[in-house]
């Protein structure tokens, strides 16, 4: 229980968080950076969702003419790219930032300024790619941009230039954050926080960081080739020069399949926190959960070519990748059964986070099963590039990742803001999302098996696709309505939600021992951890769930002693990571904007000067 961790003093001189724009621009506080990630990711989720609504409206009936074919290409490309790189990944990054230091008992991440840099670079990259909408030249080559369609010859406009450079910038952000979190988790665990005592979310995050730092260099290289092909006339994807178009596919999916796990594992981690709390039982089979995470990550590098059965790699390669793909389903299935085992016989309480958590378990399983169906090359040949695939990955990414991330948002909102989100609105959000998502994506299985190709702009009547598409479009608008409820709940609850207190859910892990929201220094005294679930009794039954706070929406948040009062040294806020980002972005802007060498050089110079100023300044004030 709370005896194992020292809670910071809540008495003492009142201290309010510094606010104002400068405090956000110069922040190095992992919790603030986490919030920035969260707000930005939710904004991109809404924009990516609006793109999806255009797509669904266009496909509502046969011969849709709402948008032109050209615009449609841009819409589906940006919908995929936005949801993957600007919504789900950064929403996961929001939780990495908010939770990893709290869960391992640290004051911040290992490199707080690099952390700020990661966020700013992500923001710059996502804005950069979307600026293309303003000149109606958004990327239009599909989110995996197959060669040679992505080359200058077949795609002469600036559309794919935005994609190439934007992806390069976004990759840099993920890589920088990856090194940071790997170091943080290895090196900043509180005394007693052994690896096998770490909360499962931190484990999932740890494994995800390795996937990021190993998979992103591959896409960096693939995209660099494309960048050189497009800007400097090299031959990497130039068929006439003898290039092999499969090079892009191999490199892309070598990154792309680990990327799938980069998208889902953090959500798995969040759900592994939520299910025990609301089942009032420890996670079933903790070590197996950890080992299956590691195994998934390892096998994740050996299955990439299952995305390429249709290109004809020959029976040997097809068989090998088919078998590895079936194998990777085993550790994934183990996780599903462990979650069921966690809930089995538990004292379940169906609060909103729990509903979303159970939603992930059910819906991801559907997506997982249709995924294993693709592992067999003969059946994959029937399904590939059809709406069946679209149905599959939306069950995995929406039913899986987004459900898990929503569970995390409801579960950790009280820790992040000190206030509860509205439970009734949360339930409305869940049920509408659940209904809308199944209505939108389940009929796609049938449309796909009936031959409807993926990425199709418009289709003729009498192909048996009309009804399925009607349903999908209704479903999409129900999801949009549910998301509007979520946004209202999220924004309003920040100022008006019931006061949360330290541990509103009576959850077991140490982040719940500290006040909500946590002080900037997190733990007044670094805790010593003696068990996996320090907030629950070590002997005897797990406590029954207490009533969740519902009052105090009109009262102010609690105050704490400042870091100075406690004699804790925290990093000095600094603007330099932001300046470095601006320099870097300027250089890329110069590249895309008529290749202005002076602008590229100026941007590079600003970057290097800011980097030197940053690295040569100590992290904390000298003492």
């Amino acid at each position, binding site marked *: 229980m709370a005896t194992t961790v020292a809670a910071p003093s809540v008495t003492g001189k009142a201290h309010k968080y510094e606010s104002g724009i400068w405090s956000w621009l110069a922040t190095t506080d992992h919790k603030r950076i986490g919030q920035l990630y969260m707000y930005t990711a939710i904004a991109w989720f809404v924009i990516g969702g609006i793109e999806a609504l255009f797509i669904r409206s266009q496909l509502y009936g046969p011969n849709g003419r709402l948008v032109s074919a050209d615009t449609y290409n841009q819409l589906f490309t940006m919908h995929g790219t936005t949801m993957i790189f600007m919504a789900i990944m950064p929403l996961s990054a929001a939780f990495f930032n908010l939770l990893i230091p709290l869960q391992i008992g640290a004051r911040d991440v290992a490199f707080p300024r690099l952390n700020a840099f990661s966020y700013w670079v992500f923001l710059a990259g996502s804005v950069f790619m979307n600026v293309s909408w303003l000149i109606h030249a958004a990327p239009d080559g599909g989110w995996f941009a197959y060669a040679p369609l992505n080359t200058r010859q077949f795609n002469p406009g600036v559309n794919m230039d935005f994609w190439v450079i934007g992806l390069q910038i976004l990759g840099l952000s993920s890589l920088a954050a990856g090194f940071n979190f*790997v170091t943080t988790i*290895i090196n900043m665990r509180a*005394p*007693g926080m*052994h690896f096998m005592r770490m909360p499962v979310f931190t484990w999932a995050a740890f494994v995800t960081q390795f996937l990021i*730092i*190993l998979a992103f260099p591959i896409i960096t290289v693939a995209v660099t080739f494309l960048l050189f092909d497009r800007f400097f006339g090299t031959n990497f994807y130039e068929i006439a020069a003898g290039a*092999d178009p*499969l090079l892009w596919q*191999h490199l892309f999916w*070598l990154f792309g399949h680990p990327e799938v796990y980069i998208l889902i594992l953090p959500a798995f981690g969040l759900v592994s926190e939520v299910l025990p709390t609301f089942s009032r039982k420890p996670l079933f089979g903790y070590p197996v959960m950890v080992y299956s995470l590691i195994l998934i990550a*390892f096998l994740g*590098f*050996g299955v990439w*070519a299952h995305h390429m059965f249709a290109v004809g*790699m020959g029976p*040997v*390669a097809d068989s090998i990748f088919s078998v590895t793909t079936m194998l990777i389903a085993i550790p994934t299935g183990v996780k599903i059964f462990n979650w069921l085992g966690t809930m089995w016989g538990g004292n379940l309480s169906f609060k909103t986070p729990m509903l979303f958590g159970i939603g992930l378990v059910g819906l991801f399983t559907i997506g997982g099963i249709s995924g294993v169906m693709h592992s067999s090359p003969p059946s994959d040949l029937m399904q590939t590039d059809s709406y069946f695939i679209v149905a599959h990955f939306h069950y995995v990414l929406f039913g899986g990742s987004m459900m898990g991330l929503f569970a995390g948002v409801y579960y950790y909102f009280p820790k992040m803001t000190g206030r509860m989100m509205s439970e009734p609105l949360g339930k409305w959000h869940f049920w509408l999302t659940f209904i809308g998502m199944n209505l939108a994506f389940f009929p796609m299985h049938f449309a796909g098996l009936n031959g409807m190709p993926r990425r199709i702009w418009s289709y003729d009547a009498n192909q048996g696709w009309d009804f399925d598409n009607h349903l999908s479009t209704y479903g999409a608008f129900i999801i949009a309505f549910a998301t509007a409820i979520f946004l209202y709940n999220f924004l309003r609850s920040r100022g008006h939600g019931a006061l949360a207190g330290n541990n509103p859910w009576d959850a077991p892990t140490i982040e719940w021992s500290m006040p909500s929201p946590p002080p900037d220094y997190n733990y007044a005294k670094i805790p*010593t951890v003696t068990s996996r679930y320090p907030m629950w009794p070590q002997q005897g039954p797990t406590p029954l769930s207490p009533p969740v706070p519902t009052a105090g929406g009109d009262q102010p948040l609690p105050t704490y002693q400042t870091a100075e009062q406690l004699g804790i040294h925290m990093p000095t806020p600094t603007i330099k990571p932001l300046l470095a980002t601006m320099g870097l972005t300027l250089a890329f802007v110069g590249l895309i904007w008529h290749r202005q060498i002076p602008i590229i050089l100026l941007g590079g110079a600003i970057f290097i000067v800011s980097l030197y100023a940053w690295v040569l300044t100590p992290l904390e004030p000298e003492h």
Partner: protein
Amino acid sequence: MTADHSHAPASDAHEPHAPPHQEVHFPTWKTYRWVALILFVLTVAEVWIYYTPMKGTRLFAPALITLSVIKFTIVVMFYMHLKYDAKIFRGLFLGPLSIAIIVIISLLFLFGHLSLHAT
């Protein structure tokens, strides 16, 4: 954090995972000198092989690859003192390195540059 060199500070003696003091014994000048000499000799051997009749034989590629693997290993073990340093660094390096090598070999198979049957 090699077990032989670590000792828990007295104040935290009850805590099994207290941070061990980092007492890495890096190699000395004598070792470095030998390492440099061996690397030099191996590089000479590589270039020598390139200019001998061995170039046309089936031993050429395996010989060169073996020599460069030895060079690679020596630099990593001694200059990067992985042999002497905390075990966690081996994991951080050898894990990714081995996956990367497997990936290279698989790609070469997939593009038909390697074949199960010797040609």
